[in-house]
């Protein structure tokens, strides 16, 4: 089963829930488990929230969410055209946050890496950031296999 989707949204915090629900609904055609869907929703929420808070620093901008489904492999990407990240390694460190005053915990990237099967980060200061993540859904167990 091959399919794909693209979602364009303004960087409003209301769209964090919208984006994760859209991607989860798109993924549903691959019949994932409830835990797989929950992991996916959390990871998408982290990436979109980062675009809102850090990419556009709570200002105005456009966020693009794409998803490509090939058999049981879902690749999701979240792109912003905001401030970008200068030090990618530091950004990915658990508990690192550039905005502790905003009550951030610095766990976003760690959650994305742990909840998804693949994770990559591309960014350029002044140009923007793209997070790409892959979730591989477990094989469907049909009655015949039992």
């Amino acid at each position: 089963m091959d399919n794909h989707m693209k979602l364009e949204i303004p960087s409003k915090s209301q769209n964090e829930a919208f984006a994760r629900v859209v991607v989860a609904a798109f993924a549903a055609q691959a019949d994932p488990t409830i835990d797989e869907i929950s992991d996916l929703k959390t990871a998408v929420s982290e990436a979109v929230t980062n675009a809102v808070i850090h990419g556009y620093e709570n200002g105005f901008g456009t966020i693009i969410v794409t998803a490509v489904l090939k058999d049981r492999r879902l690749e999701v990407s979240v792109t912003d055209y905001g401030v970008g990240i200068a030090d990618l390694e530091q950004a990915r460190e658990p508990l690192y946050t550039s905005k502790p005053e905003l009550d951030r915990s610095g766990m976003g990237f760690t959650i994305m890496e742990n909840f998804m099967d693949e994770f990559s980060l591309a960014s350029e200061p002044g140009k923007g950031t793209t997070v790409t993540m892959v979730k591989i859904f477990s094989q469907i167990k049909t009655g015949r296999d039992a």
Partner: protein
Amino acid sequence: MPVEIVMKRAGSTLLVRMAGELDHHAVSGLRDKIDSKITLDNLKNVIFNFGGVDFMDSSGLGMVLGRYKLVSAQGGKVLACSLRPRVQRVFDLSGLQAKIPVFLSEQEALKNV
């Protein structure tokens, strides 16, 4: 579903019962409500009851951690209880339990403030 909270006083402890989805959008409305309650009622400790929370991302962790910073500066404690498996998974990954002890029920948390 957006997040809903009920706040209750138990002695010098603030009980915050939450339901819904705890993300950045939801948390931004909660913070000020909780902090002004702590300040106005001069409360020392906070118990977060996650019983009705079916989604939480790092914004929920940040909210708990922020309240910990606020009350621990005055010698108070922050505790959490009634975590569903999804919320527990995010908690476990963060190592937050070193600062915020987690209990199975609200009664148990209240006994341990």
